[in-house]
């Protein structure tokens, strides 16, 4: 078992080393040895930069390599890497939170009422058919270039994910469990709180991990189209200067942010769903 684990770790590490090496030296090595027509253009550092260049860009953007000192650099630039990351993270969080709450509420209401579900069905289908990203320019027009438009974008993206999952979860609640609760004296509201919600929670949580990624995508796209700050804005600025290294820095930070958010959601999930067999042991 531990032998196997070690082997897996070894190969994972080996692949990483190979990727970094090819990235760093691949293009130069190809250019030196192959005829010009065979040199793979995709490896051109103009497009993908190099690990060392990305690292020094990171130090620069994060104000670790400024002659004036880190704090002076931080205050001089109001979209430095730290602020950009915090802004993107903050907007992702609020968009995720509002979208989740609204999605769960709407899913519970329509899931519990056959009547309302029937009324709203065509509207839900119609709205859901709009690619959410197509709404972003409109949202920016309505809510401005600031943080609010990013939060709204993320919330709309998250809303539908949570809505559909909560709706399905609410509908698949065991009828006998509801009957059992009622026979033990539960009112309609108590049934909702103590049976429907916990039972639908498994569905809700299954959608939270993708939802948090979608929230991040929503915010980044919003920042692409029009923003003052944020990681997406950093990428657009770097693109204007054809600076691949700086774009890569933002992309890596986003990756780390994404991993962090998914980890937090997963931890929450395994705690709240500890009654379910698949969450028996901490992964």
């Amino acid at each position, binding site marked *: 078992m531990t032998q196997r684990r070690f082997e897996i770790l070894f190969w994972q590490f080996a692949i990483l080393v190979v990727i970094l090496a090819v990235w760093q030296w691949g293009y130069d090595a190809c250019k030196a040895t192959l005829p010009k027509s065979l040199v793979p253009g995709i490896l051109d550092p103009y497009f993908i930069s190099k690990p060392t260049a990305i690292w020094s860009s990171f130090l620069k953007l994060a104000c670790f390599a400024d002659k004036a000192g880190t704090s002076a650099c931080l205050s001089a630039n109001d979209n430095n890497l730290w602020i950009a990351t915090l802004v993107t993270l903050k907007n992702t969080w609020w968009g995720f939170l509002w979208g989740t709450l609204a999605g769960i509420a709407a899913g519970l209401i329509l899931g519990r009422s056959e009547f309302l579900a029937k009324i709203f069905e065509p509207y839900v289908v119609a709205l859901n058919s709009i690619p959410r990203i197509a709404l972003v320019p409109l949202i920016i027009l309505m809510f401005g270039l600031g943080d609010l438009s990013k939060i709204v974008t993320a919330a709309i993206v998250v809303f539908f994910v949570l809505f559909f999952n909560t709706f399905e979860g609410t509908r698949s609640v065991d009828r006998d469990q509801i009957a059992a609760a009622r026979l033990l004296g539960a009112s309609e509201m108590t049934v909702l709180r103590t049976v429907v919600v916990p039972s639908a929670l498994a569905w809700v949580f299954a959608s939270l991990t993708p939802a948090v990624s979608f929230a991040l995508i929503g915010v980044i796209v919003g920042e692409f189209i029009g923003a003052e700050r944020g990681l997406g804005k950093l990428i657009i600025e770097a693109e204007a200067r054809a600076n691949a290294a700086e774009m890569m820095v933002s992309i890596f930070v986003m990756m780390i942010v994404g991993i962090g958010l998914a980890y937090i959601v997963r931890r929450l999930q395994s705690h709240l769903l500890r*009654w379910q067999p698949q969450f028996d042991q901490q992964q």
Partner: protein
Amino acid sequence: MTSTVASSPASSAKALEPRTRIAVAGLSKTYGAASRQVTAVDNVSFEVRQGEFVALLGPSGCGKSTILNMVAGLLPKSAGSIRIDADDVEQGLVNRKVGYVFQRDTVFPWRTVEANIGYGLEIAGLPRQQRRDKVESAIETAGLTGFGRSFPRMLSGGMRQRVALMRTLIMEPEILLMDEPFGALDTHTKLEMHKTLLDIWERERQTVLFVTHDLGEALTLSSRIILLSARPGRLKDDFAVGFARPRDAVSLRETPEFARLYTHIWHSLGEEFRRTKAK
């Protein structure tokens, strides 16, 4: 139709009889539209008196669970009347005097054993400390000591059904409706459950209406068996089960009286099983 109660003579004796708790009269249940109507229960009438343990026995699909669900108010009736004490049973209206145990596993998987058993008390707003005391003694009664903090998925089917049973009994219902509660359990576990239920019932003497298709189970537990015919469910017979109490779920089965009554009812029941098969 009634073979035992019919002999009770004068009206003076009737005054001494325990009062009627459940009164079912002319009860019918039909499904489907008028042209393709299926009758599940056909004109059934019976009464259950205070402190009686009545088994509703019949072959599968004879409508015995349907009757119970109508008595519980879980299912609308098509015709007839159901009264619990002086009150008409309305579908969707919960009677606090009535407890119900399902055949299917209905424990809440997201609640621990403690929280499952204490559910009814919790939503009734009983203070935590009182609740804990009651739950603790219920856990002990059910033989679940040490499993209070476990989630249902860690328990066997029999243990989960004990949780469901205690969840209902902790509310101290005067009338207990049970829908083949041990139907899904293996023989050994079933016997263990019979012991537990007999212990509790012989102490508390709730009024019980217990649906089963298992004649042995009906004889072990009940003080009276109401036999239903194959579909559509009609009342076929009514037997008193007079074995002395307290009963032992295992040794009772070895007595000649048990064997005699078993054979007697078996003939009656066997006809219905054959009728079910013939269909």
